[in-house]
């Protein structure tokens, strides 16, 4: 089977290539992260439930609420994975709306698609899955009424570029709602979070054969941005308002930014 080739194309005049960040990051490149998420795809949903004691469902409902998505809207869920947020958005926007779930992992999208077809709710017909890159979105400017991103931003290799793309494809006055682990500036919270990952998350993940993959979680949180930094990043790319909310006892955070 022929392998895909790297494209060497002349970018159009107004297209800015992502600037390679020279800051040394002890975490893996995009291809390795893609492979990681593809490997854990079969157990991802199960582990989310076990590790968060089902709480992730509540946090995701909050994220969808904060996005401002409503009936009839066209909405985008980035780094959709196996589709949790997309399914919630699907119920929100109804049969006259449209949800696009985008992810860079074929395996995760395959799980999402299977879940969609195995469920009986007719409104899930309003979801379309797209394999794509959050840093180079295949959508026109100012298209979506709302965007969500759950546990995705922390995993992209260029936060600034991702935020720029979200801004670009969002309609004016619309919102993006980004849920992820909270990188706390509070020493106690940060220590507790680290302890949880080392002693609970990795241990449980080990039982599923994915200890190494979930060890990545700790370094990715260390490399992530704090709530204040996320607010500043959003304002920096042009969002008119941005606010970061800590939830889940400070373990999780949700950035809400308005274009």
């Amino acid at each position, binding site marked *: 089977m022929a*392998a*895909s*080739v790297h494209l060497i194309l002349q970018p159009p005049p107004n*297209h800015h290539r992502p600037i390679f960040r020279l800051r040394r990051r002890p975490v893996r490149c995009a291809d390795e992260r893609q492979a990681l998420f593809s490997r854990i795809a079969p157990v991802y949903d199960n582990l989310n439930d076990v590790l968060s004691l089902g709480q992730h469902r509540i946090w995701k409902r909050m994220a969808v609420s904060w996005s401002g998505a409503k009936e009839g809207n066209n909405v985008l869920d980035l780094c959709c994975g196996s589709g949790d947020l997309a399914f919630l958005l699907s119920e929100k926007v109804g049969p006259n709306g449209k949800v696009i779930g985008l992810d860079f992992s074929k395996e995760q999208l395959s799980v999402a*698609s299977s879940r969609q077809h195995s469920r009986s709710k007719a409104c899930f017909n309003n979801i*379309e899955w*797209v394999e794509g890159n959050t840093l180079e979105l*295949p959508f026109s*400017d100012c298209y979506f009424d709302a965007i969500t991103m759950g546990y995705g931003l922390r995993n992209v290799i260029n936060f600034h570029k991702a935020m720029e793309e979200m801004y670009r494809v969002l309609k004016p006055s619309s919102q993006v709602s980004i849920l992820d682990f909270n990188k706390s500036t509070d020493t106690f919270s940060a220590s507790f979070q680290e302890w949880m990952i080392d002693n609970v998350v990795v241990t449980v993940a080990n039982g599923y054969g994915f200890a190494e993959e979930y060890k990545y979680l700790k370094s990715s949180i260390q490399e992530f941005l704090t709530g204040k930094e996320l607010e500043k990043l959003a304002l920096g790319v042009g969002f008119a308002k941005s606010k970061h909310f800590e939830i889940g006892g400070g373990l999780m955070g949700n950035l809400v930014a308005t274009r």
Partner: protein
Amino acid sequence: MVKASRVLLRDGGLAISKTLSEILVCPLSKQPLRICEKSNSLISDATGVSFPIVDGIPCLVPNDGKIIDTDDMPKPEGAAIDSADKIGT
């Protein structure tokens, strides 16, 4: 509720819905794409690149794209279409 009709491939498999094909643009040039039923792909005429559709899911990660040889460049619908040329690495 009207279910969006999907473009059917010549072999009877599913491509993507027409609605989705109208939403999507080339991830690099941000120009419109068109469906090529014969090669089961989305073509960016602006860049001469085709992106595959696999199991009804369009693959629009830039690395998924294949440069179409100009001799085999699929024409817009109504004209004869040849399959996209794959350049091996």
